[in-house]
């Protein structure tokens, strides 16, 4: 990031460099396997470079580059349909779940491309966790099993004593421990919406991701739960790099260190109009459209 100034990306017209759909990704050296078991990982920076995305023939993102520094909170803001969520899902390879989806560009976790052919899809998703818009705890599992679901689902074995420690630690980090410590065996679906969302955060944290992606995590929650989730975000931000998509300007202002403003003009793919430190984006943006958006004049 360049000091206090935001970076305005060049408009699309002047770049005719052809972007090609990946099949040939430059080979990168093999990455040391993600630490198995629960040694606490260090935070990692995430870099997207010239990412373009398609759904079928429709291009939804055009050469988006963004650096998400380690241990900070990056907020993606912008009106609906501008490709923020698509961009977020590209960051942990959830984009390719859609059969017609295609992608170009690179996403680097600590300098290593997660789309490199020799990297396993599941390793990328283990290192880069995700919290969804709608709380989705597994209904067939208890609160404790929900927290441990990531280990079970990735085939990670840990001892019984460690397991209890991990459940407590994850729930404490997600700010849910005090509310549920006496009923860990109850089904996760019995919790309130805000608690369910924090349970989902705890579930993501239990596999010790290095980056946590959040797709509008508070849009289905009431203001009180939203505040608790925001506090959680601020507390875990020291250990985990966070990228959050939000429609709520105040929330972006409150929780993030840096902001990226996405915009898709009518019928064109989404681009980043401007990105930089949150305060600068809100108080002194360079682009008129950013200024209009953060002040609620459109979108």
């Amino acid at each position: 990031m360049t000091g206090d100034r935001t970076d305005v990306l060049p408009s699309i017209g002047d770049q005719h460099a052809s972007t090609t759909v990946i099949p040939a990704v430059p080979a990168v050296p093999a990455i040391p396997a993600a630490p198995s078991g629960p040694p606490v990982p260090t935070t990692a920076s995430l870099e997207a470079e010239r990412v373009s995305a398609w759904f079928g023939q429709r291009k939804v993102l055009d050469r988006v580059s963004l650096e998400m520094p380690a241990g900070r909170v990056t907020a993606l803001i912008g009106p609906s349909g501008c490709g923020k969520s698509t961009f977020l899902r590209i960051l942990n390879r959830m984009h390719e779940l859609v059969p017609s989806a295609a992608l170009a560009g690179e996403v680097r976790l600590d300098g290593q491309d997660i789309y490199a052919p020799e990297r396993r899809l599941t390793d990328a998703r283990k290192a880069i966790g995700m919290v969804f818009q709608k709380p989705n705890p597994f209904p067939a599992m208890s609160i404790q099993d929900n927290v441990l679901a990531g280990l079970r689902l990735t085939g990670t074995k840990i001892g019984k004593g460690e397991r209890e420690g991990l459940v407590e630690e994850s729930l404490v980090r997600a700010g849910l421990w005090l509310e549920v410590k006496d009923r860990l065996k109850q089904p996760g679906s019995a919790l309130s919406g805000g608690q369910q969302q924090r349970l989902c955060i705890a579930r993501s944290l239990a596999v010790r991701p290095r980056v946590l992606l959040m797709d509008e995590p508070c849009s289905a929650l009431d203001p009180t739960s939203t505040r608790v989730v925001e506090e959680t975000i601020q507390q875990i931000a020291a250990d985990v790099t966070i990228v959050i998509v939000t429609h709520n300007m105040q929330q972006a202002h409150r929780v993030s260190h840096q902001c990226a403003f996405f915009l898709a003009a009518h019928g064109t793919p989404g681009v980043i109009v401007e990105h930089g430190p949150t305060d600068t984006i809100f108080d002194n943006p360079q682009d008129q459209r950013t200024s209009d958006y953060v002040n609620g004049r459109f979108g």
Partner: protein
Amino acid sequence: MTTMTPSPTTGTPDPIDPATGTAVPQTHLPAYDDDAPPPLPRPGLGKPSPDERFALIGSWVAGAALAWLLTQRLLPLAGLPWFLISWFVVGLVVTGVTAGITGGMTEVKDRVAAGVITGAALVTGAALVSTVVFVTMRGWRAALNLNFYTSDMSGVGPKDNFDKGGILHAITGSGIELGIALLITLPLGIGTAVFMTEVGGKFATVVRTVVEAMTALPSIVAGLFIYTVLIVALGFPRSGLAASLAIAVMMLPIIARAADVVLRVVPGGLREASLALGSSRWRTVWHVVLPTARPGLATAVILGIARGVGETSPVLLTSGAAAFTVTGPTDGVMNSLPLFIYTNVRSGEPQAIARAFGAATVLLALVLVLFVVARLLARPRGNRPTLRARLAGALAPNRAAR
């Protein structure tokens, strides 16, 4: 405007700004009148007052009397069926008229519609209950003897009394055949459903179409298929195994289709959440999708079993009917409950027919037990009360009464 505008909801007037003479907008705090009469629930449809309930019962009694007069005294329509039909029609008319006396058109429509629906429900219920009652009535004499469950029909003639012979061989045969069929169809059926919902693609559409078409497969065709392939072409003897395979052909599409429907309603968000944790697709299916759909899957399996346990024609062609107990699935002819019922009902001996109805009673009870077991298995794991807690709960009211 010179007067104060009274607020319609609270009666407190909005204050007037002396400078402009217009009402100043302000919020209102609700006021409660403590002397007002207590609120009464409004009368409404579906909540009959004692008066209306009396009119309703009276109408149907009047309908019965009128119908009796019509059919048994005035018209040449003697007999119970005509009485019931005219009771229904006359009762509807009387209900409509009495409703019209006290209420409007809506009440008339409500009562008549309620009468029609209740009548339809009673007819459906009566059909079900009469089936069970009829079978039990004709079979209870045979089914009440203990030896009916502990011995088989070896050395027992069709005219022998009920204190000799039983259906142990048929029960064992049914159990073995169904067990083998379930062993085949459970993994295959749920596997097919997982393929259709989780893998998808063009081929899954083809499979779905085939499965749906197979649901309508006539059971005699399934029997013929196993008969020609296994017994005629490959030269195996008629056996319990062949019967199991024929039953499996019938059960597989039922289980696969019902499980497919169940798996499709598992929210996609759960799959995404699992995949986002770094899970493989296989682990997602095993640890998330299948456990979430467990109650529905149990129902799917029970549907398949209920279909399989009563199938007669595939068994008829493939197993042969033995009068003695056979436990080896490949040891030649084996009897089963539907087959026992079929052969004995056709024999013409009153004792044998009673035995067949006794066996039918047992078959009905067996299906009932299966359903209860499936419902218990299908309970969500997390909040399942223990057996003891449930017993205590069931006994509590009795204790209170004492």
